[in-house]
């Protein structure tokens, strides 16, 4: 039982990272039906911006905010330069472009900062809280991750449900043409979606830096794919789905590591993906759409 609760806590903090990245995937997919493979690399850039800021002596929050702003701009630039022209193109062309952007960010990262692993400054000296006579350990870093994730999720819910741009995003993702008839500028709305999704990924990047201390230019690939799995599990295009999917995936992986072997972790994640795709392709929270004949 102790292993279970310990892994649950570890899983929730890992899952928070997945959830933050998954949100961006799901929002972008919801609005332009694109699997943005470069999204994991935006997360990597976010980690490096956070790394730069904290090594300059910035505090955690300013570094987090800077990273989110930089990546929001990066996300918009990527959309305008690489994806916008391809909105009517075959899906495979867009997907390949996304893979290209992903490679580009990684290799530019290597060129700019080198391939070696960097150690993130110790912004939070680790404090361990012992629960149940030391049977379960929670670190302050884990708490920071979970709290920041929950706060960002609440902020996102607020933006999506209460603000004008959020309503525009939902309208465009449901029916872009009807949204145009409302006077909504679809291009700007898509840009905003990329900006918000990328900012969330950047936050995840900074949090991972704080949590694991180590970052490198290829760090975005696996979490990116896993976060996509999380988005699919939750129902791609569905925002709460991505959140729940991310947390679930984190917990499942932690439990596999705790009870089995961490070597099997990735296989379990992808097996889960395939099972969900085959059994309920719309995900846990999604609804099915069918092709018109």
């Amino acid at each position: 039982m102790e292993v279970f609760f310990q892994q649950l806590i570890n899983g929730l903090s890992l899952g928070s990272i997945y959830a933050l990245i998954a949100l961006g995937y799901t929002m972008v997919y919801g609005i332009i039906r694109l699997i943005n493979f470069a999204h994991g690399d935006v997360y990597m850039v976010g980690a490096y911006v956070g790394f730069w800021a904290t090594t300059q002596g910035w505090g955690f929050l300013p570094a987090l905010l800077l990273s989110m702003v930089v990546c929001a701009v990066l996300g918009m630039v990527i959309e305008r330069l690489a994806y916008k022209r391809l909105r009517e193109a075959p899906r495979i062309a867009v997907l390949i472009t996304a893979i290209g952007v992903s490679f580009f960010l990684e290799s530019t990262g290597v060129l700019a900062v080198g391939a070696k692993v960097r150690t993130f400054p110790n912004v939070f000296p680790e404090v361990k809280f012992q629960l149940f006579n030391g049977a379960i350990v929670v670190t302050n870093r884990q708490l920071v991750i979970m709290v920041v994730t929950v706060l960002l999720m609440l902020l996102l819910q607020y933006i999506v449900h209460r603000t004008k741009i959020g309503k525009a995003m939902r309208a465009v993702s449901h029916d872009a043409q009807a949204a145009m008839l409302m006077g909504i500028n679809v291009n700007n709305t898509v840009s905003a979606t990329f900006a918000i999704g990328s900012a969330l990924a950047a936050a995840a990047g900074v949090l991972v830096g704080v949590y694991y201390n180590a970052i490198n230019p290829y760090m975005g690939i696996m979490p990116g794919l896993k976060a996509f799995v999380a988005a699919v599990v939750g129902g791609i295009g569905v925002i709460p789905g991505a959140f729940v999917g991310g947390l679930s995936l984190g917990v499942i992986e932690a439990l596999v590591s705790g009870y089995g072997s961490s070597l099997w972790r990735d296989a379990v994640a992808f097996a889960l993906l395939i099972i969900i795709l085959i059994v309920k392709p719309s995900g846990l929270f999604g609804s099915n759409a069918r092709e018109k004949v």
Partner: protein
Amino acid sequence: MLTVRNLHVYYGAIHALKGVSLQVEEGEIVTLIGANGAGKTTTLHTLSGLLKPREGEILFQGQNIAGMAAQKIVALGLSQVPEGRRVFANMTVLENLELGAFLRKDAAGIKEDMEKVFVRFPRLQERIKQLAGTLSGGEQQMLAMGRALMSRPKLLLLDEPSMGLAPLLVKEIFSIIKEINAAGTTILLIEQNAHMALSIAQKAYVMETGKIVLSGPANELAQSEEVQKAYLGG
């Protein structure tokens, strides 16, 4: 108010509109009728900026809006209630109405118009927190109309408001259209239900295979054999 001259629109290789011209005066109800596939919806989509014409002019209050971005056209005061309502199903009635006023900044005016919509469609007020997708067909049609009115349009385009509705509801919708018009909004109405449309319009155009084949005062056209022919063939 609206003058369309020699509009040509293509879908890929298909020549969908072949030189459509029509005119709507301020304060009128004008109807555009015709069989399926005649090009009525294409005409409306082109007016709203969803399709770009290859040739031709669309003068709205003297300004050429052909090929203009859709949101700019809405801003000028030309709104559309699309075919099949296309309400935002997973958003509430209130949110749908708010989206109708997307481009407006005058909070007081928006509130006032919202009240007006609720007076006109009391059922929407009862269902204000409900998701639009859970409304009945007739209620969705009302929501779509209310949503378009929220932009305070000068010209309202209605695409098949009677589609899929029971006859009693159709009558209700049509009397509301008359009321909206009486309150000062000019209306261009597309209908399959030709008799109904002709009974409330002042002027009518009949379309066939991408062209206007007949036009005139609505009450004259209502008596004409030609209309029946346009629908049911020679």
